[in-house]
């Protein structure tokens, strides 16, 4: 049953990819293949990063409504980026190799994320609402600090940072694609090996410990993985608030299971399907750039409210 659904999703995704590559194609194929191919690759990578990060985060925080973005992870990444420009100065920053910069950003991000969220989540575990609220306010704080620093930075340096307030799926940063693929694959490999342990972690702390899982260590590992994945997706396309929530909710709804071995591929496929087909529709058919993210946010927000009201907090 699950296998059948996964196959259907894969077929749909393949169709969407073909549509994305061929619709409205003009000019030489060798150019298009590379141009559209990299774009497609980036979309797929972002889908995998966001869906896996969200699913993992929901597993360790023990609920189906939180996502790393709601808790301010991607705002934190943007802050880290701005901080680096601020401390290094614009010229040094530009002079740095893009991939080294990226790795440095991820390093700082990991440190900050683990420090911040292990305290928030440790304290807030009993009180989910407070944890979410704290996360959202952290997001506001990070965004405001980013804005604040961007104003202080030299106007020249400022131009280096694109003050993106919402995701741009149509313009991805292609230089980071290679490194991104490497990082995401590494994360996915670790996670795939942990897939059965994750099922146990989803049962909650006391149950997991009772079943012999070293809970604290694993939730630390998962937090690190989540921070890495969010960094990659934010670096590539910018912040997305509710996309992950939309994807994992759909995955739970369609698959109707708690097993990570099924949920992980399912949510990856669903995320990719939404992004690729959405981008095809918006870019190729409607000819309107970057409104996909706003549309996704709008429906994601509505879904979040719906989940709140239907009491699916746990």
């Amino acid at each position, binding site marked *: 049953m699950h296998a059948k659904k996964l196959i259907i999703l894969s077929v749909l995704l393949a169709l969407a990819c073909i549509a994305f590559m061929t619709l409205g194609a003009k000019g030489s194929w060798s150019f298009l293949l590379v141009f559209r191919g990299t774009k497609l690759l980036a979309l797929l990578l972002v889908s995998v990063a966001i869906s896996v990060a969200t699913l993992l985060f929901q597993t360790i925080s023990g609920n189906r409504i939180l996502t790393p973005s709601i808790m301010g992870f991607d705002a934190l990444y943007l802050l880290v980026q701005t901080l680096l420009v601020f401390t290094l100065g614009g010229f040094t920053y530009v002079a740095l190799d893009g991939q080294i910069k990226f790795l440095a950003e991820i390093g700082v991000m990991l440190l900050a994320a683990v420090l911040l969220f292990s305290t928030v989540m440790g304290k807030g575990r009993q009180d989910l*609402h407070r944890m979410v609220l704290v996360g959202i306010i952290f997001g506001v704080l990070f965004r405001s600090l980013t804005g604040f620093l961007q*104003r202080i930075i030299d106007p020249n340096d400022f131009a280096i940072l694109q003050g993106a307030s919402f995701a741009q799926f149509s313009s991805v940063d292609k230089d980071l694609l290679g490194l991104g693929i490497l990082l995401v694959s590494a994360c996915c490999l670790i996670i795939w090996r942990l897939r059965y342990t994750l099922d146990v972690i989803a049962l909650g702390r006391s149950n997991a410990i009772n079943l012999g899982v070293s809970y604290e260590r694993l939730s630390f590992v998962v937090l690190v993985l989540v921070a890495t994945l969010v960094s990659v997706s934010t670096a590539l396309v910018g912040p997305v608030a509710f996309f992950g929530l939309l994807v994992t909710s759909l995955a739970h709804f369609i698959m109707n299971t708690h097993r990570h071995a099924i949920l992980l591929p399912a949510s990856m496929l669903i995320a990719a399907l939404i992004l690729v087909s959405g981008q095809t529709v918006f870019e190729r058919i409607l000819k309107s750039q970057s409104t996909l993210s706003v549309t996704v946010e709008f429906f994601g927000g509505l879904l979040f409210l719906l989940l709140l009201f239907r009491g699916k907090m746990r």
Partner: protein
Amino acid sequence: MKNIGVAIVALFALSCFSLFVGVKEIAISDWWQSPQNIDLFFISRIPRTLAVILTGASLAVSGAVMQMLARNSFVEPSSVGTAQSAALGILLVTLLYPGSPLIVKMIVASVTAMIGMAVFLAMISRLPVTSPLLVPLVGLIFSGIVEALTIFIAFQTEMLQFQGTWMSGEFSGILRGRYELLWLCGVLAILTYVVADQFTIIGMGKDASINLGLNYKQVVIVGLFILALSTSLVVVTVGMIPFVGLVVPNIARRLMGDNLRASLPWVAVLGALLVLMCDLIGRLVHFPYEIPVGTVLGVIGSFVFLYLLYARPAHAR
């Protein structure tokens, strides 16, 4: 009540200081001697300082009233979609009737703000009372949705830049002739003080209100009206400013309790002080450039709010 004099003196001193902060340096000793300086004072410096004070007081008072109406101390008009709804209203009226006068925009913004607030209150009335933190959560998400809708429309119609001016509050554009609407906010704040007792009773709950012979619905509608009007006034003239309405009433509550009759003067003065302070920080940190007051408050306000969230046990009030 006894120390409010001190707060007022502090506000006055800070206002005087604010008058002498600006790109053109004016010495305190001889500002009245050059007619240019006097002009500068009356055209720019004094209006700006007054606008800051009026905005701060109005935002804080609105927050206090909102918290009574929602019976939850973690809400304010700009965190539950009211200010966002007002911005949506302004955007719509600007799109549909580009040449309409400011007063028409005001009225439309108030109407949409009122609708937004009514939707929010209707939503939270269906939440269980046992989880007070769910209320601000729903509010934040709701305001996110309204904002996404506004951005979407603005994007499609290439109004993103206009829309940005209402989304982030800034006082740098305040000149004589561009802030006078804010005096209406002051009037509304005084009106709130006149009926302060009724809002306090509403804050005790519906049953207590009925028991004390209050027309619950009527008072709530009056409250909604005052809130919608003053929120959209601020959004139209200076833009959205976060956290003032959230943190100031909470601080005043700790000092004075929930009796609005006693605490409202404090709320107003502290609100004005906070915004004035943040405006000064924004003007001084990167002199001669300015950082919008909304950004400064976003940083300071979220710190204070995080403190408030953790300083008190799970019950929100």
